[in-house]
């Protein structure tokens, strides 16, 4: 059974650790879902709405524009958001831990 740690190094309790891991995993899954939805939706749109996806936008067809050009910036945005928030989570955790330690 879990025994409450009594030493000064215990500022990182299991609760802290588990929460950080859970938050990071949640963030990863949210970002992955965002990407997967786009990946699944594009062929479906091509399949069910061929006329809509074939309309011309700047000379490309809509589906060509999305897949050949716009998809790249889309994943850059996801990865940028992920990294920013993932690092912010860790920093917040470190700050909370230090504050908690100082109180003791």
């Amino acid at each position, binding site marked *: 059974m*879990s025994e409450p740690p009594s030493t000064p190094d215990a*500022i990182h309790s299991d609760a802290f650790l588990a929460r950080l891991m859970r938050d990071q995993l949640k963030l990863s899954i949210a970002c992955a879902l965002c990407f997967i939805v786009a990946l699944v939706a594009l062929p479906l749109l091509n399949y069910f709405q061929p006329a809509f996806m074939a309309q011309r936008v700047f*000379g490309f067809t809509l589906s060509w524009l999305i897949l050949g050009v716009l998809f790249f910036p889309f994943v*850059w945005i996801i*990865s940028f958001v992920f990294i920013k928030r993932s*690092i912010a989570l860790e920093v917040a955790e470190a700050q909370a831990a230090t504050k908690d330690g100082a109180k003791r």
Partner: protein
Amino acid sequence: MSLPLASLFLAELGKVDPWIAICSLATVFVTVGMGFWSAGKSKNAGDFFVAGRSVSVGWNASAISGEYLSAASFMGVAGMVMATGYDALWYPVCYACGYLFLLLFIAGPLRRFGAYTIPDFAEGRYDSPLFRKIAVCFVLFIGFFYTMPQMKGAGTTLAYIFPGLPYWAGVVVVGAVITLNVSLGGMKGITLVQAFQYWLKVFAITVPIFVLASIVGHYEDHVSANKTAFETVASAPANIERKALPAKAPKDEQWISPFGKLTTKAVDASIGAAPTPEAKAALEANKKPFSLLYTYSLIIALVCGTAGLPHILVRFYTNPDGVAAKRTTMWVMILIGVFYVFPPVYGVIGRSLTPELYDAVGAKGTDKVVLELPTLLAGKNHALLGSVLSGITCAGAFAAFMSTFSGLLVSMTGALAHDVYGRMLKPDSTPEQRLRAFKWAAVIIGAVSISRHASRSVGNQLHGWSGFRHRRCQLLPLALHERLVARYDDAGSSRWHAWRRCQRPAGDHDDFHFRCCRRWGEENYRCRSTGRLLAGPSCGEKPRGHVGRPSARPHPLRATRHLGRPPLHYAHDRRFQSHRGQGSWRHPHEDARVTCPGSLGPEAGIHQGARRPRRSLIRIPGADYSASVKLETWKSGRGCLC
């Protein structure tokens, strides 16, 4: 072999366009030069295997991108877009976006595990020597198969640039240059070469296409020259001159719309093989749903295949820590995303202007559109410009073969020298011996690859590689599994506590500490890196029992059989006998001798000497945990008891 090659070269040099010859040879010579330059910089085994774990985000991202953009990306993607149209766009998109999964789930934990090679990771994670052997086989298998199209590309391109040179000449030149580089500079040298070659490739793919597009018409104009099924007349601007398509080329509406030739290939084949007319009719009626299915399976295969490439994964070990590994992945996605916008442009313009390529197959047909397009300028009164630009694209193609082959060679060499030699054949080898093994392994693998391909007169087509990329997803589930079971690992949990007490040496940011502590007897821990006794009488602390979370349960794969064994059980392990009682031992992965404080008592020597790393490579839950937290703890001075 080199003498006839040299004379052939000189004889051929007079016949080819001087700009093409100059650019190609310059790429080769610069690469060789970098190899010699970096030879002086790589000194120890760490430099050779993981570039001293000190590669910055920018360099590593450029190097990974350079390694990743192979001949297939440089020439094959353009060829496929030209040959099959819209559906081929999934290739560049999934190659670039597959890195997202690497970023979200793999990069951080993988780097924090602190191993040297992928087999190291496999064994350490599952505490099983068998896993190392399986992983070595995979790395070598994938490496050799992936080398094949690179070598094939090198041979055919050189034969295209210097007509008259035999196929094997290109294989020998590219193979020899890279083998030399790897054996001279190892991972550190290759990092430099690959980063340089990324920028060379981007230059070689963008500059010619911008110049071309300004003369013959832009990307979107050439796309709009193909009319869709919903248009009666193509909406191309008047300045686009389009040549008539040969009979073999796909029709406009098939080419530009989804579910075209590429995705119906499989169902067409089964229609041809169908036994009865009814079966044929049924397949024919369901052609479009099958295409949708094909598209999805293509996406899954490409995205997962990207995340499992061993020669890419191993590069993450060259980053200093997990956060740097994540940042690197983001920059890799940006760098290769920028690159991958351009090959389809070649394909589209090639369809309008060089439709004669449809009549030939593979490397003589659409696959050479990237090399072929710049030469069109010669016919438009820009003879010099055309030569310079085709010189640049040829240089880019050379960079593509060389950088990918170098990455494959490093990962295969690492597997042989570190895992087969350093772990299986001769576990008590010194770092110097393993360094020598690395150099020899590089030469041997390079020679084997060259001789295998030089003798092949036929190989697979440039984009034949995509087929086996589908099959190499094996490391992705492994790494994902790593994430999932980490939470239920109670054996590791107590070590997590042990780790938290272990004093970190200042400046050491490596997360190796996560698994560097092992249980000794019942309640004593010793940090493997610092050699400190972590709990027990000398720390004056009450021995602690099991401290896993109440819900934690051991995972079946992580049997805790190595706990609580009498130390003498390991004393027969010959690789530690020499270190017994000396107060220092070899760190199992970092090739550094670690010295213990002298006051550990008589039994310390035994335990130290009796350690058996492969039984004690321990994954601590929370290894996906930023270095920043631990550093905060360390800086605030609370991380240690001993």
